[in-house]
């Protein structure tokens, strides 16, 4: 029972945590490059230099006494996002969509007072959300406007696209959708929906919530079978270009689509998680092998995207089996 399940995972090419740490993270990501992605301000700076769009920085706070000026800093903006500069996994992010006198409204409609925001900022500065509890800084960013394409696919949050980039080649992608269960956050552990996206076309392939397949958004009931991510080529090229700006060989790139400004990089991750395999219903290992077999990395991100689209396009689409029915039949008979 145990052995057959190990065998099955192996044959699917599923990569485990130990394999990821050993064969990918420690192999492709030199330790000294971590600060580039762990510090979101540095990431932002690098991305802007490379001409990549990022959410607009409204302000930063570095010291506890800066908290006093918080009200003045925030008064100019109706909508903003407060983030820890060195946070990870979406921790410590506070989104405000509206402000009215002394009340600030969260996407859920809950109102909080200024003191709550001050405490939140002070906690971030003390290092509550940073790796290892080190003192941190706070960044205030402009709020991203949800692209109408995703309007019905998200509950209280902006969907973000996670692309795994190995040596500059995008190898797998997943759309993360906030749900009521995840409290508006795009964190799969907390109940967000992960939708596997076909590298070849940008179409949804398969979706999971809590590791189990789902076919429509649990809150909006919108089915996933006709979900296609727009600007697909541009998104992949943006993700691929992050290899050059960071030098990290195994990278998780988080991209959001803004209604007005198009794709933007919001975060880079040097230790991207493995749930993306569940969302895509396929393993990373075969794709890693293809990239590792390459003799040299093509310096042009656009050319790398073309390579990825050719080699990592889905063989079958689990949501739209009818479209590629002949292929699917053949493929599934091999698999079963």
């Amino acid at each position, binding site marked *: 029972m*145990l052995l057959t*399940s*190990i065998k*099955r*995972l192996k044959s*699917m090419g*599923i990569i*485990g*945590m*130990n*394999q990821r740490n*050993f*064969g990918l993270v420690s192999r492709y990501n030199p330790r000294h490059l971590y600060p580039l992605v762990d510090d979101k301000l540095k990431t932002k700076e690098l991305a802007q230099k490379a001409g990549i769009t990022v959410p607009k920085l409204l302000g930063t706070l570095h010291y*506890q006494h800066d908290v006093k000026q918080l009200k003045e800093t925030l008064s100019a903006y109706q909508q903003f996002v407060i983030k820890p500069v060195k946070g990870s996994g979406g*921790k*410590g992010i506070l989104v405000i969509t509206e402000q009215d006198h002394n009340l600030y409204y969260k996407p859920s409609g809950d109102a909080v007072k200024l*003191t709550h925001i*001050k*405490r939140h900022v*002070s*906690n971030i500065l*003390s*290092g*509550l*959300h940073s790796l290892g*509890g080190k003192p941190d800084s706070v960044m205030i960013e402009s709020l991203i406007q949800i692209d109408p394409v995703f309007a019905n696919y998200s509950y209280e949050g902006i969907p973000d696209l996670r692309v795994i980039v190995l040596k500059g080649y995008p190898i797998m992608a997943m759309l993360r959708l906030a749900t009521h269960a995840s409290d508006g956050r795009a964190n799969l*552990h*907390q109940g967000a929906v992960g939708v596997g996206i076909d590298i070849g076309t940008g179409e949804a392939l*398969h979706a*999971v919530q809590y*590791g*189990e*397949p789902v076919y429509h958004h649990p809150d909006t009931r919108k089915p996933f079978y006709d979900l296609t991510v727009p600007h697909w080529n541009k998104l992949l090229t943006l993700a691929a270009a992050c290899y050059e700006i960071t030098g990290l060989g195994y990278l998780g790139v988080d991209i959001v689509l803004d209604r007005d400004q198009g794709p933007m990089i919001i975060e880079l991750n040097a230790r991207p998680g*493995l749930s993306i*395999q*569940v969302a895509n*219903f*396929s*393993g990373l290992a075969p794709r890693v092998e293809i990239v590792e077999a390459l003799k040299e990395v093509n310096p042009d991100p656009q050319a790398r995207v073309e390579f990825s689209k050719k080699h990592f396009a889905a063989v079958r689409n*689990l949501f739209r*089996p009818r479209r590629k029915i002949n292929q*699917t039949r053949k493929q*599934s008979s091999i*698999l*079963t």
Partner: protein
Amino acid sequence: MQAQVRLYSAVLLIFFIGIGLILYKHLALGFPLMPDDKKFVWTIEAKIDFQAQGDPVIISLALPPKEPYLTFMEEDFASSDYGFSEITTNNERRGQWSKRSAQGAQTAYYRLSVYENDKIVEEPLVDTPTPPQKPELDEVFMTASMTLLEQVRARSANAEIFTRELIQTLNSKSPNQNQRLLRNDKAGEDYKTNLILDLLALEGISARVVRGLFLEDGRRRQSLTNFVEIHDGRQWILFNQDTGKSGKPKNFLIWQRGGQSLLDVVGGRNSQVSFSIIKNTHSTRNLVVNSSQNKQATIIDFSIYSLPIEQQNAFKMILLLPIGALVVVIMRILVGIRTSGTFMPILIALALIETTLITGIIIFLIVVGTGLMIRSYLSRLNLLLVARISAVIIVVITIIASISIISHKLGLSQALTVTFFPMVILAWTIERMSVLWEEDGPREVLIQGAGSLLTAIIAYLFMTNRTVEYLTFNFPELMLVNLALILILGQYTGYRLTELYRFHSVGKHHAIDKH
């Protein structure tokens, strides 16, 4: 690839050094591998009594030979006013007491503590003794002897069987006339010994008398028993002269070999020696540590045993930590259990050792539970992080003090052990769990809390196992083996047990495949 080879050779080297040291201590120094290994230590006291007549006195007593399979713990020659020296001649040890003049009843003591060790002893090379001289016997005796020897010879094939047959015939319950004449039932033990030696000499077999003591607990006023030892051309074989059984009986201490006197007293009359025996049980480990220290075995001389007892006890605990670390490594890398703080479970396990399991878990849950409640109030007070953790530390100490006082008033003395919990660690645990609660919800707190506690309990069970405790303290080399295991585990890139569940939906066939 080369790094891999280097690592594996380092691992192998470390592993075999560890195993080698353990084997050396077990086989060469005799360290037992199990904690309950016990040995009987025999304390034998020889008491020499005689009447002195005012002249210079010299007492000479044969002392037991130092056989390799025996460990002499202590030898003591207590006799007031007597000078003492130990003399070794012709492979025989003798103790000599002397005094210029003595009058009246005199007593000298020789005390020996000895135990049998488990060392594997190679058979020592013995030089072949010179062929025996034919004894001179009167005619009647000679004839009877020859007849008997002929009978026995007819029934035997070699010297060993011959001796056994001879002794059995001499001891037969229905002796014929010949045998009765030879064995002279009124004579004592020594007569029989000499008779057997004479008969063996007539047959041309080299033989000697062996005097020894049957070790039995609580015996007093014992005397030595005579055995006969023959040389069959290759080795010496010991025979019981009353039964003809060969080989050394269990609990038989050989005191003297050969025909010299057991006790000589010059300047005294009515001398006699008697033996008393006491049996004690000792743990083998203590005996071995003592004897190794006496022998100055370097590996023991530069070990934890050379530290003062207090530090030794501290090390008992410290040496258990690697076992806990191994458990954590296995739980995280192979099983994939999430714990709050990498090594917090070991610290909980250490506290559990002091408090015992059930009490410890209850106290832990009470402290952390109460702490979380109070911490959730503190989070409303808008405090800076360091101040908040410090506040939580004070809260934890207050909870611990309350538990101690309340349980003491209620007469529950077990709960007083609460002070063994590391308070700063508990405070950090509470702080992290409370943050986890706010960010990831109570489910994650339960998962990580249960994971930490489970790991701690498993580590506790290993660390309190008597055998594990014994082995880690007495064979610190085990740490090398442990290190090798951890290095190997650090190379494991397969799935974690929990990942089989995490990816289980991928492992199953997809619904569409079923069509």
